[in-house]
């Protein structure tokens, strides 16, 4: 299997820009819409694993369980953001979207939390990694059941405007 992936990687990674090539498995073409439904949850992170030690070189996440996803933003995707909810008094969920910025020094990760959605505007279509975990300010071992929704954010609209 590994050799197949390598062969695909060599043959298939062309001009991927900020995104990585889907080498093993067929990339899905789901395109987020504007309804915000349905939501995705990694389940109870307390029963999960601590798979990521470092986010973006300096955000130490060791001791905090996380959920890792691959996400494909199809060309023409309409989602504006990813929201994350499910915080408690001791658990503040954070979601990170990884781009090639970590390698080139052009920024690093986009992040969002329960007060501020992760913005997707300006993100090029492509395949990325998404991680959900506890905030860096949370205690070691902090965990809970976060829920994520893409979009769910209607565009701002002016209802009325007058000058007198």
């Amino acid at each position: 299997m590994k050799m197949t992936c390598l062969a695909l990687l060599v043959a298939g990674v062309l001009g991927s820009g900020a995104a990585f090539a889907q080498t093993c498995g067929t990339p899905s073409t789901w395109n987020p819409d504007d309804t915000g439904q349905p939501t995705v949850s990694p389940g109870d992170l307390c029963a999960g694993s601590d798979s990521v030690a470092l986010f973006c070189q300096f955000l130490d996440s060791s001791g905090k369980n996380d959920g890792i996803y691959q996400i494909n933003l199809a060309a023409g995707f309409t989602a504006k953001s990813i929201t994350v909810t499910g915080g408690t008094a001791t658990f503040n969920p954070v979601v990170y979207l990884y781009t090639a910025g970590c390698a080139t020094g052009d920024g690093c990760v986009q992040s969002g939390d329960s007060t501020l959605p992760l913005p997707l505007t300006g993100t090029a279509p492509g395949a990325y990694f998404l991680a959900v975990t506890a905030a860096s300010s949370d205690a070691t071992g902090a965990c809970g059941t976060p829920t994520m929704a893409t979009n769910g954010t209607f565009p701002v609209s002016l209802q009325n405007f007058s000058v007198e």
Partner: protein
Amino acid sequence: MGLFFMLPEIIASLVSLASPRTPSHLILPPCEFPESYQFSTVDCPLELRNNGDKPIHILKTSAAVEGDSISPASLVVPPHGVAYAQARLSVGNSVGRTKRVFHLETDEPGQTKRSAEAQGFVATVLDDPRPALQFGVVNIGSDSSEKSLALNSREVGDFRVSEVLSAPDYINVSIDKDGRTLHAKVKEDAPWGLHEADFVKLRVNAPQQPQVWVAVKTDVHGEVIPDSNPFSLGLMRKGNSNEFLIRLTSRSQQDFHTGAAEVERINGTAEVLPCRPVAKGCKLIRLRIGNDQPTGSIGGVVTVDLPDYKRKLPIYVWGMLVGANTQVKDFNKEMQRAAELQASKGTGAESRVALDNRIDLTQAIKQGVAKADAAPPPGKGPLLKWSVAHEELVHGYVIYRADAEAGPYLRVNKDTIRPLPSEAGGSYQWRDTSAESGKTYWYYIGILDNTGSKEQLSGPQKVVAK
């Protein structure tokens, strides 16, 4: 996958199960710093709360980002008490909602490494919050590589660039006689490879913000090019043989020599091999990613020496390294699965309608209350009133004013008007007390979103100031 590679994870899991973590008594609410312009320095008092019966010693404090600082270097948080550390942030070229991390080393058992956060909004005087000279791929010797970029500001009247402070040495930069348009050209001897994190640094005449940085982004193709740059390593697992082949080809299909290939910023090795089957003007870099590095997002650079051209070619690589047994799900498929489940239960459409109704109802009630309760701001001058729905991504509102419908428009409210704390939207009033009585003005409302982007919310409206 060998059991040998799984052992550390298995042992870690067993240890984790055997010794549950001691909960922390140190609570670190994020500190919110005031809205600031780029290149300013802001202070933020970090609150450290101890809800336990014993003092917590902070043995060492440090800033995660270069240029930021935190003091004191150590402190004690008393039992059932509060202590403060002062964070100082150099916001630099950040824009929009910005978060900075400060590390705290504590003596709490099992909680020795903690982090505190300072967050706030960083504004820019520019209309485009992230100006960039996007050259794209530049084929040295064949492409035109000139770009112009106008820097506009509706915050500073007669905005001008006063000086080019610095620029990458592979481009020539000049300022147009209008004082705000940059002209730039990639030099013929530019280093080959990807340039994504360089800036033209400019001194500007804005009183709020001394500098503006313009990003320079280009992929310079010389005689030898990699098959992609950055090169994605995708998902890697510890214990696997994470090997990748990066193809180098000659644009003129000529054979070329290579020297050493070096890997920086990640643990790994690289060597150059002939292509299989052998092809003219083609070589492969075999990159091996080491297991002896932290899991998570990894990024580095592979540099290959090209002695024929007296050049080095950097190739950026990035990917995600996870443990041998880490479950990595497909977000898109999870979404689809959830949608199918929702549809099978017959709850999708109903819940969506319910959501819409809830928002509309909340909106209607809230607007009514706001209109009924709000008294106009005191003073004389044109009174602007507006109502907005769906403000979730809005940081604030900005009022622009002109003497004529066609402009030029300039920002008139010094402080950004923040959205009301609500679910869906709000009603607002703002009075322009700087207007001259009897004079005709045009106003429109702009949005500042959380990423720092600026948009026009309304069309202009005319008024004669009373």
